């Protein structure tokens, strides 16, 4: 169990990539677009960065299936919470003839 399977160079490359993505996401905030794009782009980049951290730094890439299940389950459940609740918010205004329902 004790043999490291990822080389030091890989870790360094991943870290450099992460820093570059950070610079990119901060840089994009200087781009004047409708604010919703800041959220979309920012979250996309954040998901990429988080994936890099989880896959390489947290060794998910070389982990057992069980670890993968834990990761996927937590993402899925977070998705349930976000999608179903925000779904209520997004669809509340969809029946305009019945005020404020």
């Amino acid at each position: 169990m004790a043999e490291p399977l990822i080389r030091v160079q890989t870790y360094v490359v991943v870290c450099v990539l992460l820093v570059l993505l950070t610079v990119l996401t901060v840089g994009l905030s200087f781009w004047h677009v409708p604010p919703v794009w800041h959220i979309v782009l920012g979250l996309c980049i954040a998901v990429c960065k988080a994936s890099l951290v989880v896959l390489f730094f947290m060794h998910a890439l070389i982990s057992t299936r069980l670890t993968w299940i834990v990761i996927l389950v937590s993402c899925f459940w977070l998705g349930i919470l976000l999608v179903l609740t925000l779904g209520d918010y997004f669809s509340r205004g969809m029946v305009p003839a019945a005020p404020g329902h």
Partner: protein
Amino acid sequence: MSPESAILTPEERAVLDQSVLVRHRLEEQFRDLDQQHEAASLGMWIFLATEVMFFGSLFLGLGAYRYLYEEAFEKASIKLNWIIGGTNTVVLLVSSLFMVLAVHYVKLARRKELLVCLGLTALLGLLFLALKGLEYYLDYRDNLIPGWRFDPEEWIEKEGLRAEQVPQVELFLMFYWIMTGLHGLHVTLGIAAVLTMLILAWRGHFSPAYYSPVDVTALYWHFVDTVWIFLLPMLYLLGSHTFP
């Protein structure tokens, strides 16, 4: 971690397992150190799943209110200090690199590198907290603390917000303080854990056969890093910045 790899032959391994040094670190409910390590690692992963939901509900609140109050959230977000926020991201990412290197070196039984990496991780963590403290001070100076140092007039006059949007700004700042505060608490606990590992490593507690505390601490540290990765765009980068 990976069942097929082994730096030691099974015979060597058996000898090591029986050695007094390793034996007294095996809890009685486990069969061997592998089982113990897998249990500890799985336990930490599951704990992190819990943490995902914990922070997730805050992100949900932030997201829902961002949807309802786009303009106020955008203007309030611009007021946050993106320079410190961005720098802190880099600080945490680099600390994560050293953390993962620490795990790397403990597996290779390279004590000196292990100590250096753990030390740098803790130092960068402290740097993060220091920058965070500076940022909090600047927020204090700039009247960004809802309920304590906050000036509604400023937002109406300078930012052109309407009176009813001021509470929405406070709402955003409330989320900012809660989320960064909670994250800061996690960083603090993480630093404590890393320092504990440093002391244990100094005393020669770890070996390639027994390093699960370092591994588990690293998982936690990386998770805290991941949370910050999402906090950066959701708090600091909601609006369009202009060059100062």
